Each structure stands twice: as structure tokens, then as C-alpha cells.
């Protein structure tokens, strides 16, 4: 049953060294505040799962939280490379990063299978691709009726899934809308669930078939306004495209990355303080 708590407490209680962690959000509603808190609490040896690693995992990988990454597309959308991800894969910095690479379709199906408590997913995919050659967890299965051979991959069952959503009511029922990504499946596939929300409201006033995660599938819910910045929260604020572009410069070199991480994340006590710092005119001038 959902418990309202601070984000720091939620990460302390539910994200442990060595855990398999999924922080999902397809461009929209990416749980940056939670990612920063994981970095602040210096979690190590995590297996990170995410379809599109994005800046959030670039930051966590560069900060040394991850030992392993399962993903399907690792880039800075609309900008270019994830430099910290590349540095880890190409040069083992700050630590070696084992990767398990799948396609979007596969990983989306693997979350569905996890949510449905199945050990594997079946899909039409990978025919002719080299991916099964480098990932022995992409296998085949024959249809028991037609004999047709399809791809089979293991389901994803994170120890903990962390997402950001728009609203939760006082009981902890969570509502999200707009681009839903794979969040519902990532939540239902996980053993534990931490959700940050833009705001806590008395009533959700949701449409009948809205995407709602009932309080009883959530462990911790935390009010963190603008907690998806620099991604966006539909109905609340827009994507900070300037930051996505600035990140390319910040993350390109280890020195600038380390300095940024130290100043902006490790030296701030929480996401509100981080956000205040982002508004600083001097910081904005550097980003632009």
C-alpha cells in the first residue's frame, strides 16, 4: 500500500546496492529527481533497465551507479550521443558497464510479459539481425500449432521500478496521461514501486479509462514538483530542449561532467535545491 514519504526516504528504503532498477518514461515523465537521489545516495552495482537510457542513465552511469545496462536505444534524442554511456562502454570509465541489448519491440514485450507474470515474451523480430548473435538471451520458439518459429526473450522483472507521474490522491492512487510509454507495465512487473508526482490532490478526477496505478500496487509515493525536468510533464511544463543540448557539452568530457555532477547533484540536498540552481542566471548562461 502506497506510503507518502520524502524522495530521499523512498530511495533509501526501496533502492539497494545491486538491485535491478527500471526507471521508465518514454521521453515524457522521465524520473530525473529520483535518478539524482540515487546518485546522491551513491548507490552502486545497479543493473539498470530502460528502453531509452537518455540523460538520466547517462548521469547515473557517469556517476558510477551502474554495473550493467539493459536497453534498446541509447542516445540523446534529437541531439546525438550519450557520452558517459559511450565512455563506459568504450573505455570502462568510471567502471566497466556490461550491456544487454535488445530492440524496442523486444523490451516493450518483455515488460508486458513481466507484468503478466510470464517468464518469457514471444515476438516477431530479429530475423536476420546480428543482435541474437551477441545476446544469448534472444532465442527462438516454435508455435505448437503452425510450427512457425518466432523470437523469445526473457521477461523483465525489476527489483524496483521508479516512475514520475502527474498526480496522486491522498491515498496514493496515481494518474498519468499523455505519452504513457511502458510505465504501467514497468510498475506491474516490479517487486517494489516508487513513484514521484507533480502534485498531491484530494481527488484525481480522471476519465473512466485513464491510466491509473492503484495505491495498493505502489510502495512509496513522493511529491516532487517538476521532478521530470529536463524532460516534461504533460499539462505542467515543457521539455527543456536547451538543457538536452547543453548536456552534450557538459557530458562530452569527463572533467566538465564530474564538475557539473559535483556542483549540481552531489552538492545539492534535494531536487528543489537543484532546480533553484538551474534557474541561476550564471548557470543558464553556461547552458545557452
Amino acid at each position, binding site marked *: 500500500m502506497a506510503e507518502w514519504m520524502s524522495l530521499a526516504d523512498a530511495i533509501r528504503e526501496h533502492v539497494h546496492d545491486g538491485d535491478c532498477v527500471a526507471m521508465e518514461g*518514454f*521521453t*515524457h515523465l522521465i524520473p530525473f529527481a529520483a535518478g539524482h537521489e540515487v546518485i546522491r545516495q551513491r548507490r552502486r552495482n545497479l543493473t539498470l533497465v530502460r*528502453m*531509452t537510457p537518455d540523460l538520466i542513465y547517462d548521469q547515473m552511469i557517469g556517476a558510477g551507479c551502474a554495473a550493467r545496462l539493459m*536497453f*534498446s*536505444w*541509447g*542516445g*540523446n*534524442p*534529437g*541531439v*546525438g*550521443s*550519450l557520452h558517459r*554511456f*559511450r565512455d563506459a*562502454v*568504450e573505455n570502462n570509465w568510471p567502471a566497466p558497464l556490461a550491456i544487454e*541489448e*535488445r*530492440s*524496442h*519491440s523486444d523490451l*516493450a*514485450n518483455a*515488460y*508486458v510479459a513481466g507484468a503478466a507474470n510470464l517468464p518469457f515474451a514471444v*515476438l*516477431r*523480430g*530479429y*530475423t*536476420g*539481425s*546480428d*543482435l541474437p548473435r*551477441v545476446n544469448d538471451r534472444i532465442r527462438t520458439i516454435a508455435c505448437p500449432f503452425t510450427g*512457425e518459429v518466432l523470437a523469445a526473450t526473457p521477461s523483465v522483472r525489476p527489483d524496483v521500478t521508479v516512475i514520475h507521474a502527474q498526480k496522486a490522491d491522498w491515498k496514493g492512487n496515481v494518474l498519468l496521461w*499523455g*505519452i*504513457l*510509454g*511502458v510505465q*504501467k*507495465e514497468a510498475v506491474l512487473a516490479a517487486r517494489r514501486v516508487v513513484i514521484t508526482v507533480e502534485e498531491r490532490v484530494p481527488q484525481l478526477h480522471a476519465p473512466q479509462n485513464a*491510466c491509473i496505478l492503484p495505491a495498493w500496487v505502489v510502495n512509496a509515493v513522493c511529491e516532487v514538483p517538476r521532478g521530470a525536468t529536463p524532460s*516534461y510533464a*504533460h499539462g505542467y511544463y*515543457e*521539455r527543456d*530542449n*536547451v538543457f*538536452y*543540448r547543453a548536456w552534450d557539452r557538459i557530458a562530452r568530457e569527463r572533467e566538465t561532467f564530474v564538475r557539473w555532477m559535483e556542483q549540481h547533484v552531489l552538492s545539492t540536498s534535494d531536487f528543489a535545491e537543484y532546480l533553484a540552481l538551474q534557474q541561476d542566471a550564471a548557470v543558464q548562461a553556461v547552458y545557452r
Partner: protein
Amino acid sequence: MSQSYSADEMMTVAAARMLRNGAVCFVGIGLPSTAANLARLTHAPDAVLIYESGPIGAKPSVLPLSIGDGNLAETADTVVSTPEIFRYWLQGGRIDVGFLGAAQLDRYANINTTVVGSYERPKVRLPGAGGAPEISSSAKEVLIVVKQSKRTFVDKVDFVTSVGYLTGGDSRERAGLPGKGPVAVITDLCILRPDPVTRELMVATLHPGVTRDRIVASTGWPVQFSAECEETEAPRETELAVLRDLKARTAAAHGETGDGA
């Protein structure tokens, strides 16, 4: 020869023209998105744009910088979950045209977006597969939009992320892939199409002002020109006007060129 348009504009216009009105199109970010929206704003007002993040029937007023921009959701007929997009809509066989890019491409239109060098010790780690392996197999037709250079158009891709015609001939059909495969590769220099029998990419039309020598010098295999090889029709006034207007609106909204990557 002086041109009133850039090579990028020629490429985008040529790609947009490939999209027939009413086609259901699975759109990636960047050039594919620009081309698909240009088509929608010119000759193909009823084209249905599906983005892998969930929007079905998106009609963005500015080009999205990311695959999941809010404008896509707001202008869509409906927004479904990402698993549903891949399961019911792409794998379900409902996509007429998939638009893809490539970091490397070979003569059979096989695509690499995974690594340059070896997989275990890559020289360059690329973003990876994304939706491409299943788009390339399940979309009824595939269009590839990519800038042409020897670095991109290689004799052998370092890694086959997403298949084109495999080893050519009928190897794609024999592998049992549902879709027809890449029907055209649109570059900043020309349009290539697969030979009906060998499935090797042949230059079908040259963009105005581009020489055969330049194509040869920009291709990592001994590229062939089809017998009927002609000149690509130059961008029309209206095409350019709509494209530039779209880009200007996008720049105003995003604070930069907004072309994406």
C-alpha cells in the same frame, strides 16, 4: 549550377514525395519526421503518422525534437502505450511505410546502428536498435533516409542491426520476413532502389547537379546506375515554402533549428 535549395532540402523533399496520401507511416525522429510532416502538409494530408512513443495520427504543428514531444500527443487521434504500438500496430501489420535512418548501410540496404568496429570492443558505440529491427521486418515497405558518404555507404556493415535484403536475391523472402523491405534509399545526392532480381541498390535518379562520379566517390561499393537513371525532379516552390515555413515554426518553438538528429 546555382541552386535555390540545399542538398538537405532536396533529400527531405524527395523523401516526402515517396509517401502516398493515406499511407500509415511509422516515423522516427529527425529526417524521417521532417519528411513525413512535409508530405502531410503538401500532397498527403491524410497520411497517418505513428510515433513509437504512442501517438497515432499525430499532426504536429512544429517538428518534434524528441520522439515523445507533447505536441505529438496533443495533435494525435489517440495516444496508446508503447507496448501497444509495437504489438498491435507495428507487429500487427498495420504500418504501410516505415521510415528509417542508418549509421552504416550496405548494398542490400542492411542497416547498422549498433557499433563501428567489433561489438565487444567497439571503436564507436552507436545508439543501438531502437524500433528499427521490427520496423524493417514488419512495415509493408521501408524508406531509408540517410546522407551519402563512404563512411556510411559501406561494402560490409560492421553489424547488421536491421535487415534490408540480407544477401540479396530472394534471401529476404526465404527468411520469412513479413514486409517487402526497403523500396528506396533517399540521400542528399540521389535516390537508390533495389534491383528487382538481385536486390542490390541501384541509383535510380540523380539529384540536380550531382554527377555520377560524385556518387561513386561517396559509395563504399562499386555502385551501379539503373538503365533508366534520370534526374530527380528539383524541389518545387510550394514544397520549399512549406518545408521552410515548418522549419521556421520549429526553430521559433524550440529555440534552434530543431532538425533533430
